[in-house]
């Protein structure tokens, strides 16, 4: 027996060998049809999407600037992933729950979160709370992949709440969880696939394959396209052009509707690109070529939507100027707001470990306060 693959095996590995990338808007800004997926939104939605994408990019740029000025300890850029984030956010229903990783600025802004609320995490004034944020938005996770299991658990809670498969779609909900290409290697993410499949849980796994996990290209994680991972766990995986806001919305709507109806999980691989550094601590020139960056620049999610909307006459330069002005205002607000974020006092931390603070933490707090006070006396 040779080492060639038996036919059945070869057939299986070759499945979806074309690795169909679902696309509705080309990089040059032209609409194309997909056999299965169709854009369901209005023209006005697209205008609004472009606005959110532009604001996201402006705020993201401001985040980087604030880090460079030393006002933030770190900034995690979403540059280039605006369509994946905002297109998917467009698909959320009112009962859906959102579980981000740490790069989802576009999702936050689409959901109406005040960016000042999460600036604190990067300034070091806060852990990850947003008291005025939308209730359906979970905290981000910084330990790669862990949040996918939380999402499955939240989906299991929806099932138990009777929030899945009801005749009236308004009664149904699902969970969307974000993670990266690198995250797919973590045990937790694969266990999340197992648990979601076993429970047929209403969860959409939204993987932004931005081609890099810090310095590691996706090929370090897998020799085959990531969306294919799903079928072996028993649910569908699809690959969508993550820089195409129309396609991302269409695919996410389909997946969410399917999940809410009780048909179970879906893995969406949004094929996109991290146009910036991994974070402000990173130096991508060490590991990737300018050519690659240029190649993806030509597929910029904002450019193509702007081209399309301009061509269709849905926006004009004045509109763009208006958004630029709005962006400038927001950036300014961020600059001012950032430095005004309330400086935290460690004393407050002692009461946040448990709902009822135990004795030893009261004592440690007192010890800390006495120690701090000793300086004031001395001073």
């Amino acid at each position, binding site marked *: 027996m040779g080492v060639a693959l038996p036919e059945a095996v070869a057939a299986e590995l070759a499945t979806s060998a074309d690795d169909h990338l679902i696309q509705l808007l080309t990089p040059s800004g032209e609409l194309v049809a997909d056999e299965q997926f169709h854009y369901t939104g209005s023209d006005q939605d697209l205008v609004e999407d472009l606005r959110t994408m532009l604001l996201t990019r402006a705020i993201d740029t401001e985040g980087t600037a604030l880090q460079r000025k030393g006002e933030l300890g770190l900034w995690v850029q979403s540059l280039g992933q605006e369509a994946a984030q905002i297109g998917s956010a467009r698909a959320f229903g009112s009962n859906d729950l959102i579980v981000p990783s740490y790069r989802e600025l576009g999702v936050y802004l689409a959901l109406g979160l005040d960016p000042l609320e999460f600036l604190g995490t990067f300034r070091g004034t*806060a*852990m*990850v*709370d947003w*008291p005025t944020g939308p209730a359906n938005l*979970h*905290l981000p*996770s910084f*330990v790669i992949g*862990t949040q*996918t*299991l*939380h*999402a*499955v*658990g*939240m*989906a*299991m*809670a*929806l*099932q*138990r*709440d009777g929030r899945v498969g009801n005749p009236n779609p308004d009664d149904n909900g699902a969970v969307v969880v974000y993670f990266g290409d690198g995250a797919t290697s973590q*045990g*937790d993410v694969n*266990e*999340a696939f*197992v*648990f979601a499949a*076993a429970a047929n849980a209403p969860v959409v796994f939204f993987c932004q394959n931005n081609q890099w996990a810090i310095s590691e290209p996706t090929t370090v994680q897998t020799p085959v396209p990531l969306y294919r991972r799903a079928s072996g766990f028993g649910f569908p995986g699809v690959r969508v052009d993550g820089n195409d806001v129309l396609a991302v919305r269409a695919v996410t709507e389909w997946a969410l509707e399917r999940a809410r109806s009780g048909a179970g999980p879906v893995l969406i691989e949004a094929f996109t690109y991290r146009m910036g550094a991994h974070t402000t601590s990173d130096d991508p020139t060490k590991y990737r070529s300018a050519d690659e960056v240029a190649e993806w620049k030509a597929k910029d999610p904002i450019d193509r939507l702007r081209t399309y909307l301009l061509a269709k006459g849905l926006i004009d330069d004045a509109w763009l100027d208006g958004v630029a002005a709005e962006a400038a205002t927001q950036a300014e607000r961020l600059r001012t707001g950032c430095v005004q974020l309330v400086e935290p006092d460690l004393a407050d*931390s002692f*009461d*946040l*470990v*448990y*709902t*009822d603070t*135990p*004795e*030893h*933490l009261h004592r440690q707090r007192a010890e800390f306060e006495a120690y701090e006070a000793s300086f004031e006396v001395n001073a």
Partner: protein
Amino acid sequence: MSTLTMAKALNAGLRRALANDPKVLLAGEDIGALGGVFRITEGLQAEFGRDRVVDTPLAESGIVGTAVGLALGGYKPVVEIQFDGFVYPAFDQIVSQVSRLHFRSHGRLSVPMVVRIPYGGGIGAIEHHSESPEAYFAHTPGLKVVTCANPSDAYWMIQQAIADPDPVIFFEPKRRYHDKGEVDVDASAAPDSLYQARIARHGTDATLLTYGPMVRTCLDAAAAAEAEGRSLEVIDLRSLSPIDDATVFASVRRTGRVVVVHEAARTLGMGAELAARIQAECFYELQAPVLRVTGYDLPYPPSRTEHSFLPDLDRVLDAVDQSLAH
């Protein structure tokens, strides 16, 4: 008032929690039709259904991680880790997520969940089935860590742990599962607090500080010591995090001598923390150093040597002798 084994008492406590609160649910490997490998959940799936007593896939991180999601979704998951040695795959979820969501969210979120872990040796098992990993969890801020030592505590503590708004790691001394004891299920019989130590036996010459499976060992030792005219106090810590310092220090101040007893390895076991606290707080009252009678700093050895590995009555009394000799 009825006589129950610890296993049955836990079963009854879980049943009551499930009956009283529709948000309580159990999850774990083999806890459904089989009732768990120790039968702690026996009959509960038949009674409460598969949505509330859930046989999960075989993956501990998944069990704990999905329980976090269920807790965030308003449920109160009580998960079973089949044996002590199988909690480590879930360590990241416990240490970086379960313990911190309250803190991470500035107090806005909480994860009211319980992780039940049958623990400890003395049952003649193969490796990974006799461990005492409590110190890993007690070192982790944000977790509460408790352990029961008799059927009554088992019955009440499991219910109190479930009712607690914070995550609780609940250690069950598996070799005491079949010990019998009186259980009063009347609400008035519930102990005041899950986090309070209990003076299991009063004494004046020295204090034995212990918990879980070693409480019985220490009570036996104290009974034997009495025959020799020595009066030993036995404190059952019940809560390993937080530690009920007040009860501990008061006893030490009375007796001036302490022996800490546990199965876990000595280095950085609970005895280390207790000794450190006691020497700091009762420096002038201590008549002798705090001594530790513990498992040795070995991986859990082959079961036919476990009688030598585990603290027993004689080793405890030997340490008491050493303490009194000071």
